């Protein structure tokens, strides 16, 4: 069984005002097939955690470790992490002018699989995945995320998730900017991917509404750069009713 293990992770970022500590000792273990929701207020460091896992160069890991089945992820380059089976659906997906989605997807698939996919099945897979996500076929020939609406960008992230078939996926606020219909479609995509490959998921969110469609096994409350409380799905309901106030006061106390 695959395990993604984050231990005592400390991460900082260089700002104009100097070094800023963001993550202050994060511990989190995700097994294959598990869904972990990470919830927390704005600025608590959720995206920083996601970027640190993916290896964004802006974020410096000061101490701690991230291992994937015992292998140190922090020693891998960004693309090596993806090849090892990690995937990050970004809160703000990046536009790449002049590069078509289909070229991008094929190049990524080729890189991750180590060989080019068989053309016929690949074209069919892409088309099928797009249909299920209710993406018009024109999105294949459009440039990556260029001019996509917020919701379309999120669907495009899940399209990649379904096609690249990672072992662990971090979904950073995939629900934000989605209306109810789109939220359902995207959630179905995530659930499909999980049913098919049994991937482990770290679902970062602000609100509980996506948890109606993607059922978490564990919920972690993230405050001021560390996990303040953990529990089962019932913790999400509690947060829904009470908000984060309780944690904020205890964090500042």
């Amino acid at each position, binding site marked *: 069984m695959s395990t993604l293990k984050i231990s005592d992770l400390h991460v900082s970022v260089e700002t104009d005002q100097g070094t800023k500590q963001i993550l202050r000792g994060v511990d989190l273990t995700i097994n294959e097939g598990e869904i972990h929701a990470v919830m927390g207020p704005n600025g608590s460091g959720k995206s920083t955690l996601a970027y640190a896992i*993916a290896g964004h160069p802006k974020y410096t890991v000061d101490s701690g470790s991230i291992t994937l089945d015992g292998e140190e992820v922090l020693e891998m380059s960004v*693309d090596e992490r*993806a090849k090892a089976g990690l995937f990050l659906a*970004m809160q703000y997906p990046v536009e*790449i*002018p002049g590069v078509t989605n289909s070229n991008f997807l094929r*190049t990524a698939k080729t*890189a991750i699989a180590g060989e080019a996919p068989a053309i016929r099945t690949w074209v069919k897979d892409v088309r099928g995945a797009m249909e299920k996500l209710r993406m018009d076929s024109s999105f294949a020939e459009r440039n990556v995320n260029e001019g996509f609406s917020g919701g379309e960008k999120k669907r495009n992230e899940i399209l990649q998730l379904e096609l*690249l078939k990672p072992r662990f996926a971090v979904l950073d606020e995939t629900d934000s900017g989605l209306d109810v219909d789109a939220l359902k479609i995207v959630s179905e995509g995530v659930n499909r991917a999980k049913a098919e490959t049994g991937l482990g998921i770290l679902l970062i969110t602000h609100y509980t509404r996506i948890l109606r469609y993607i059922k978490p096994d564990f919920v972690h409350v993230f405050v001021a750069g560390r996990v303040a409380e953990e529990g089962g799905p019932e913790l999400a309901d509690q947060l829904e009713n009470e908000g984060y106030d309780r944690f904020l006061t205890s964090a500042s106390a």
Partner: protein
Amino acid sequence: MSDETIPLTGPTVDLTAPDGGTAVEVTGTGSRAALISDATSSHNGGAPVQTRNARFTSTEVSAFPEVTGREASWKLTPVDALRDLIDGALDGGRYDFTLDAGAGDGAGIDVSWVPRTDQRVGLAGIPEERASANAWSTFSEALAITVSGEERAEVRVQRDAFGPAVRGAHTIIEAKPFSDSVVVLDNSRDASLVENVEIIVGDQARLTVVTVQDFDDDARYLATHFGRVGRDATFKHVVVSLGGKVVRVNPAVTLAERGADGELLGVYFSDAGQHLEQQVFMFHQAPDTKGRVNYKGALQGAGARTVWIGDVLIGPDASGTDSYEQNRNLVLTDGTRADSIPNLEIETGDIQGAGHASATGRFDDEQLFYLQSRGIPEEVARRLVVRGFLADIVQKIGFAPLEERLHAAIEAELAGDAETPSIEVTA
């Protein structure tokens, strides 16, 4: 009202793009303000010229004063590396070339040497600077490429035998009325050459001229392309500069008759120590003309240098003009310099639209991260981004065999000599 002259220069002028979007201005390196004022000053360092087409012209090299390097047309050019081309004796004789016919199998296209007395010499333009005049004074025969008939015709003139001689050359490309053709000047290997290319686009003709500069590392090439576009004719001009020490191609196109359409495209990739320059001039002379200028360049390596000056002049009779010009540069490494100077002069109040944009930006690390986070190795990701940046120009060339080759050439530029791509990137 209709006679007012509005010289629009520099980053603060922001005209609306024809698609309703906003023209973007991002300052590159160097002092823009100084560069802009120089670009519109007189060739002889005297009083500023009011309009772009009021520059002194002559076919006689002796009519031009010594080049100081302060003139509008030389200000950003390394003149000291070009003295022999500007002032020296040039070999104006024939050179060898080979022809490669595409569609139409050569039918409708005649390529031959013609004497200086050919009636077409001087029809499309007269030199504005000394090197151009030097070549004009020197050439013994002109290479004339004449397209007739109405079937689509394509020809590639492979010019790889200029050799080390310091040369002056003259080329005529004439598209007869109603003709439809693509002419590729495919320049490579060694050259120390000054050339004038006259392009005459007959009424209702459709002509694409592509000039590829893929010279050896120490080659020097100065070219002026004079274009004259006739009534309801469609002219596409593409400058592709990749190889050479100093390569300067200056297209000056006059939309001379009503309904003329000119699209001036360029793509360039400057490596360490390379100077690639283009001074583009689009003159809307007749009413109801449409002009598009779109140049994109990438810079990589210490001392990589590019210059783009884009002058658009909308003359007093050019009512109904629709004009837009833009230049974008992508800076891949430190130690490069891109000058990008759009100028727009409008002499009539009655136009459909005119605008310009210029931007020079660094390679976007977020794009790189995004691609890498999908497993794409860094070098492949860089190639994708740069290829993507330049792709819209390459795709507009409208001549498939060349497009593929250019993509490959751009990727080779990016790869340098150091690296063999492990993953193929296809369109």
